[in-house]
């Protein structure tokens, strides 16, 4: 393939510099991959990895790609769980990680970050100013802020407590698919009301433009209080979440859970005594000590009114660190057992229990692999049901692919059944068919028309809106 594109590679080198175009096959395959548990195929392998230094270079690459009618695939750190990061065609892969400067302007009340800055780096930089970043993806050590805003995910956090990160974006630098550079939003800390293009690109999953720079409001650091609660059954946890919304209790920042089996494994891994039943890990937040104490007290009272075995505020930071880590330890345990097909089901809260048991039922009905292991844990208070179905590592590549596909389809059916969507992973690429299932052809066609208006040659992230397997 390289020979066919030799001239293209030379031209791209002219734009970004020789050392910023990687075109050997091993490197192209590495960059083609995402966390999907099956191998890349020939059509996923990019022509070259191009590493621009700024919006101007991105613009030149896109103009060139339009001229040559070569697709361009934008990639942050490649951690998308629904295939957004894997190129669908032999495209120019735009790696934005050279655009990663972070500048904090305390006097202006905002910071700016290059799209390729890692979330962890942004968080650390903001901490120097006693500020926080309102998003908590599990992949934050490596995920880029450009990817975060493109997916607009608050990830582990309960949206009702803090909203989505896009709610704090004041403006963007965006390169349109045809190469024009656009500056949106405001330098004020007050976001524009009314028609404002920033919103088109926040959560745009790279369909309408390449976000190269992000301006976000500075948010003073929060104070947290942590609560652990033990429940006899998953039903008790689900009832608690449903009541929390129904009774309009002040929402926590985090409301994670482990079912009894998961809690046992997780607690053992971190050296805590075997828990009583299921475990919920709840974090309240506020900007003052008094505020957070009051919220924690109110939430504890609420929990004690539910069918809880025990609920208490965790005072010892070491104990909390272990409790919190038990969740990721269970994640490790699960991932080390075999290939995991995950899903996100985000039903209306009054249907949480129904949706949960629909997800459990899939385990017995799945056809591509009989009787996979099942578990569910995660941000139940968000509310998100992360249903996981696990098959052995030895499962052949083709079966893995079918299995992932089937789990995706079956769990999307649950989202559609309850007029829900998902709040974390984005809804194109592997979920593109879901858009039609959930919202119908009219909605899908509107999306396509917007895409066509901005990207007449369908250059950018081709295949993500069309659907990909």
């Amino acid at each position, binding site marked *: 393939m390289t020979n066919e594109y030799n001239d293209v590679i030379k031209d791209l080198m002219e734009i970004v510099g020789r050392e910023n175009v990687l075109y050997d*096959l*091993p490197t192209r*395959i*590495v960059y083609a*991959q995402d966390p999907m548990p099956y191998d890349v195929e020939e059509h996923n392998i990019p022509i070259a990895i191009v590493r621009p230094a700024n919006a101007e270079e991105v613009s030149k690459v896109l103009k060139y790609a339009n001229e040559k009618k070569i697709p361009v695939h934008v990639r942050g750190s490649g951690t998308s769980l629904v295939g957004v990061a894997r190129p669908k065609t032999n495209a120019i892969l735009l790696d934005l990680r050279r655009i990663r400067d972070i500048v904090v302007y305390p006097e202006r009340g905002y910071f700016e970050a290059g799209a390729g800055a890692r979330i962890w780096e942004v968080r650390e930089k903001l901490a120097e100013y006693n500020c926080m970043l309102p998003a908590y993806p599990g*992949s934050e*050590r*490596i995920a880029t802020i450009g990817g975060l805003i493109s997916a607009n995910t608050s990830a582990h956090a309960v949206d009702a407590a803090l909203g989505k990160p896009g709610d704090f974006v004041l403006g963007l630098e965006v390169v349109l698919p045809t190469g024009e550079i656009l500056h949106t939003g405001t330098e004020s800390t007050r976001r524009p009301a009314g028609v404002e293009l920033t919103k088109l690109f926040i959560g745009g999953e790279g369909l309408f433009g390449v976000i190269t720079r992000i301006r976000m409001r500075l948010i003073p650091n929060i104070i947290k209080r942590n609560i652990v609660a033990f429940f006899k059954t998953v039903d008790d946890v689900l009832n608690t979440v449903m009541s929390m919304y129904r009774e309009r209790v002040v929402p926590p920042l985090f409301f994670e859970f482990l079912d009894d089996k998961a809690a046992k494994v997780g607690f053992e891994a971190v050296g805590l005594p075997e828990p009583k039943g299921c475990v919920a890990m709840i974090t309240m937040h506020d900007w003052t000590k008094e505020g957070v104490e009051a919220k924690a007290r109110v939430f504890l009272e609420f929990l004690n009114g539910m069918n809880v075995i025990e609920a208490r505020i965790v005072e010892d930071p070491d104990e909390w660190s272990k409790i919190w880590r038990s969740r990721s330890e269970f994640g490790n345990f699960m991932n080390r057992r075999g290939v995991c097909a995950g899903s996100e089901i985000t039903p209306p809260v009054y249907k949480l229990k129904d949706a949960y048991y629909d997800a459990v039922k899939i385990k017995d009905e799945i056809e591509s692999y009989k009787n996979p292991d099942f578990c569910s844990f995660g941000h139940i208070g968000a509310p998100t049901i992360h249903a996981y179905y696990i098959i052995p590592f030895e499962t052949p590549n083709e079966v893995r692919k079918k299995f992932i596909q089937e789990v995706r389809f079956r769990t999307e059916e649950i989202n559609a059944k309850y007029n829900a969507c998902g709040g974390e992973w984005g809804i194109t690429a592997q979920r593109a068919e879901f858009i039609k299932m959930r919202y119908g052809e009219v909605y899908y066609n509107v999306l396509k028309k917007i895409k066509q208006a901005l990207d007449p040659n369908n250059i950018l992230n081709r295949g993500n809106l069309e659907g990909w397997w």
Partner: protein
Amino acid sequence: MSDEYLSELSKCRKCRFCIDQCPTFTLLDNIEVRGPYGRVQMLKFMLKGFYDVEDSIIHSIYSCLRCGQCNVVCGEVGEALEVSELIRYGRNILISRIKEHKLSTPEANLINYVLDTLSSNIIKKYDPVGIGGKYWVKWVGDLNIPRRGSTVLYTSRMYQMTPYLTTVTDLMKKHRDMLMKGKMKGLIKVGTWLGVKWAGIKADRKLEDKSSKALYGIALTLKKLGVEYSYLYDDEPYCGTLLYDLGLDECLKDYIPKVVDIFRKHNVEKLITVDPHTHHMLKDVYPEYSNGFNIEVIHYLELLNKHVDELSKLGNPSNREYVIHDPCTMARYNGIIEEPRNIAERLNIKLIEPKRSKLYTKCCGGPIEYAYPDYTDIIARDRVSELSRHSNKIITYCPICLTNFVKHSGEFNTEVYDFGEVLYEILHS
């Protein structure tokens, strides 16, 4: 083995959480094939037959520091793979393919040449620089360490090598392009004193002084504490760390028994090691390569830690303060973390913990200076910069870290000390 190896590589679930802690990823422009994830995937697809060995893979695999931070991250949030070992093992496959295909591309030329030179020096002269001779034992001075005895202080020539590393790597930098072109093969004719001088390799006097003091300080401290030991003087061999790290397992299979034979001829029952790399080799690698290897191995810091109550014998402890740098191999492979801290506390030395310390310490860049000295410079400079924010005095306990930090210490108005050097100073204060 290759099926088993491929199966291990295939367990990587591509979460990539390892890359943000990898110095060659974060400090060398965030390129994925310069991080553990990319390295594992490159090897996996090569073994699956998607491509054969080529320069990008060679560069990626041989520029791994083997600092082991990826193993820690993978253990915490990944598949608990021994990532650095998978990469190290991959080097065996690469070098055999390079030779088999008589590959003559720039990276292949470079690696082939460097590996041939190092292995030839090690096998012929029992040290990678190939100096030989009496140089190695100069540090002993007036210590009168006996030649015979079942407990041996084993330097593995590591500290003594450091004064030459700087000039060897400078020479490497100077002629790297020519080596990559496959030319000038005879230029760096090390292997004899004459060859070393002819090639223009000189000792760095500052490092010679520091490393001699470090060894002297360690040896004298043990003596003062009543530890009985001997030293093999010019019979002492290098333990072969580089053969292992660079994936020359076939050479290692021949070399280790030779070293063990030397130990046996000297009736060695216990070895006191002084550097992290040798300790790791003897504790973890030798038993795999030498049947019935039963020599007891202890690091001098472990030994001093057993004598903490007697440390007051050493002299006048004074108020000293350093920022501590844990050598990667020491913390992550040997698990020796608390010992130097306990000892320092008893010696009235205040140690400041940097942001990344203990199990999460950051590499000095040294392990790749054999072929990528420019990368080493970037990584070492970054670490010195980070450490210098805590104190203008850095303490470490590894000759490789010492060498690389000393190079950059002036820029940050910082002094770098080896733990042994500090012991020397205390003993002479």
